[in-house]
């Protein structure tokens, strides 16, 4: 490339020359648009973060019923909002490791029953107060209160004692848990001044951006927190999150430049969006999975041969292709994939096998009456179509499935965890222990497959306190086999986060932890032009 082009490139990266002008001149020099934009993107990365500007994200999944209270955040928009104003003790990074944030150092005793978190000095809340160990303890305490309705209740309930001394927070656990730091990275646990007891909706935290205004289900406006402790993130002067639930309007807003990035791009339009100039599609393989769940203690699903028949009768690759549009990977009937630490990749993949399905079905001695599979449009995106595909492939093995479409409303209270066979989804958890404890331990409230296995429960507790990685991995492997070959879970696919950004957004990287770079895309990216 010649010197003139390099000069143009630099000017564009610094924002002196507009992107449009750059592309125009590049094409005049005979450089293809695709080539020019690739060069621009890599030049932008090499140049490093650009300060200033206002980054905007268009986010699907917000309602006017939302609030700023991090304890009750559940949908994508409140999540993204709380990850900007809030800061937690620790965070799970893009490699699946724990990064210290408000906690500077983490240590535990030998059997993982007592944990110490040293609070970083000089971290400031947006109201100017300094974050203390007392604030941290008060925050965790508030989440243990039933009235707070915290999504992290299950996590903090396991902490039997919380103490603040000087800059040290000490947490004692009822039973050993080697994964506690991962659990404390739950996005509900944003540290609030005084624990947020006074006003949980204040939106005051220690995160990289301050809330300027918040209109539920519409927009949140932020400005940079000048005294934020970590200068490596928070590049833009301001940030905005616009709630745009309509897919078409969200995509159109990205293309027209009204926003710089959007979440939840429909797989159908990925190819079309890719063809537009200045757009970039970002995929991240996460831990979320779409499932069909059988109650293993309810007829006819109390027969393992029938369960196996159904597991063999589902065409996983077809599901990934048609339901996820290829943006995902096949599941293996246990809720863990390569995104988890201690995943055993040697467990053989269960294949679509009509002969085996028919054989197991025959052995089960089922009377041939229709097996009712309940689903709803909101069970997961494409759940109704997925159930129909399942019905067709099962019919080929002689298994009579009957799909019953239920209304979205009330699905999570009347069907899921109530009816013996239905469609559902799991967003995944940062560690295997949390996933299994939430939904596969015999006594779990959300054991939605009624999987009760003494050996499994024993391994779950043992693995939780096991600090030796190799031994731990072996235990998790054995547990995976138990769920896969005896459980009531049919897990055909793991879905990916599919998002899109404009090319003037610099600094994007893949973070499988959660949507929009674990909710921090607006803080970690910057505007190049």
């Amino acid at each position: 490339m010649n010197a003139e082009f390099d000069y143009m490139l630099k000017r564009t990266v610094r924002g002196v020359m507009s992107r449009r002008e750059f592309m125009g001149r590049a094409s005049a020099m005979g450089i293809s648009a695709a080539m020019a934009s690739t060069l621009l993107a890599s030049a932008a990365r090499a140049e490093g973060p650009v300060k200033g500007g206002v980054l905007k994200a268009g986010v699907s999944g917000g309602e006017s019923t939302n609030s700023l209270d991090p304890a009750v955040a559940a949908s994508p928009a409140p999540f993204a909002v709380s990850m900007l104003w809030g800061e937690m003790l620790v965070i799970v990074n893009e490699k699946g490791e724990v990064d210290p944030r408000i906690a500077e150092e983490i240590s535990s005793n030998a059997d993982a029953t007592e944990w110490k978190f040293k609070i970083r000095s000089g971290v400031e809340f947006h109201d100017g107060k300094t974050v203390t160990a007392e604030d941290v303890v008060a925050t965790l305490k508030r989440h243990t209160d039933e009235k707070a309705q915290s999504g992290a209740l299950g996590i903090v309930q396991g902490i039997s004692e919380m103490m603040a001394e000087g800059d040290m927070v000490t947490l004692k656990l009822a039973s050993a848990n080697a994964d506690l730091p991962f659990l404390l990275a739950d996005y509900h646990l944003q540290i609030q001044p005084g624990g947020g007891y006074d006003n949980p909706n204040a939106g005051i935290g220690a995160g990289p951006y301050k809330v300027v205004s918040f209109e539920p289900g519409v927009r949140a406006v932020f400005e940079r927190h000048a005294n934020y402790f970590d200068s490596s993130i928070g590049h833009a002067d301001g940030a905005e999150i616009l709630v745009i639930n309509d897919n078409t309007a969200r995509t159109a807003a990205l293309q027209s430049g009204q926003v710089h990035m959007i979440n939840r791009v429909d797989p159908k339009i990925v190819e079309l969006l890719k063809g537009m100039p200045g757009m970039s599609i970002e995929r991240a393989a996460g831990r979320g999975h779409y499932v069909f769940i059988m109650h293993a203690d309810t007829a006819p699903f109390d027969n393992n041969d029938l369960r196996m028949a159904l597991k063999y009768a589902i065409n996983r690759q077809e599901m990934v292709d048609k339901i996820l549009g290829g943006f995902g990977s096949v599941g293996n009937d246990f809720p863990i994939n390569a995104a988890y630490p201690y995943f055993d990749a040697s467990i053989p993949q269960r294949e679509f096998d009509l002969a085996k399905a028919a054989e197991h079905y025959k052995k089960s001695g089922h009377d041939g009456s229709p097996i009712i599979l309940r689903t709803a449009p909101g069970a997961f995106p494409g759940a109704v179509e997925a159930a129909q595909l399942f019905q067709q492939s099962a019919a080929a093995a002689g298994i009579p499935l009957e799909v019953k479409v239920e209304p979205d409303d009330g699905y999570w209270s009347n069907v899921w965890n109530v009816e013996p066979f239905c469609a559902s989804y799991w967003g995944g958890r940062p560690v295997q222990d949390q996933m299994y404890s939430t939904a596969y331990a015999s006594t779990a409230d959300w054991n939605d497959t009624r999987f009760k296995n003494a050996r499994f429960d024993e391994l779950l507790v043992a693995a939780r306190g096991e600090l030796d990685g190799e031994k731990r991995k072996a235990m998790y492997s054995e547990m995976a086999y138990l769920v896969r070959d005896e459980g009531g879970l049919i897990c055909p696919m793991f879905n990916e986060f599919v998002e899109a950004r404009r090319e003037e957004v610099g600094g994007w990287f893949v973070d499988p932890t959660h949507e929009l770079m674990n909710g921090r895309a607006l803080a970690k990216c910057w505007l190049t032009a």
Partner: protein
Amino acid sequence: MKMPLSALIGLILTGAFLFCAIFAQWIAPYPLDAVIGGVWEPPSERHWLGTDTIGRDILSRMIHGGQITIFVALASSLLSFGLGSFLGFLAAVRGGWVDQGLSRLVDLMMAIPSLIVALVVLSVLPINLTVLILIMGLLDATRVFRLSRAVAMDIAVMDYVEAAKLRGEGQSWIIFREILPNALSPLVAEFGLRFIFAVLFISTLSFLGLGIQPPLADWGGMVKENKDGLIYGKSAALMPALAIALLAISVNLVADWILSRTTSLKGGRGG
């Protein structure tokens, strides 16, 4: 009296839509939910109108979808008509507290926007065709009630009705033998408009996810399924949208003609 060209076109198109709806099972080249092509294929010899978001034939889905759309709209407008016009006539003939009671009740129901009532009710009831037809029919009956009451009021003071009353005819005779035949033509025109309203309403409900549930399809639902391709110039969403519009226009043309005939019967200048 000669039929104007526009009404003739409307009549032919309406007839064609009805024909396709009735014989959908035989006409449609493919079944409703068969996946037989790629995603959003352009129109071709195999798929005259192309394929949809997961590769189903749009023409076939539109024919089947038309059946459902037209059936639901027709059933609900029949319901609203039967109920609304009967009560409207009754109110006009009986007068007194019957009229007062019914009229105030209708005022009350009309004060709450029908889309909102439908949203609230459909968010709690199981959504199936029966529920949809009932809700749409009941909500719309209020409008039919007002019209038919007004029309019947005009007729009820005519000499021939007075004569029938003096002859000692019963109320049902008066309603069915005297008023109904004379009110028929404005009511038929109104029926056309109500039918169109029902088509648009069911499309809107489906668009909001509260109408016809998959795997069944209606035109509104098909627009919703395919709308994401619209801003990339994919025509899949266009076809059902055009079908809705065309049906609405055709029926409107016929209704206009019937209405204009009734007004000219009253003795207009050019009549």
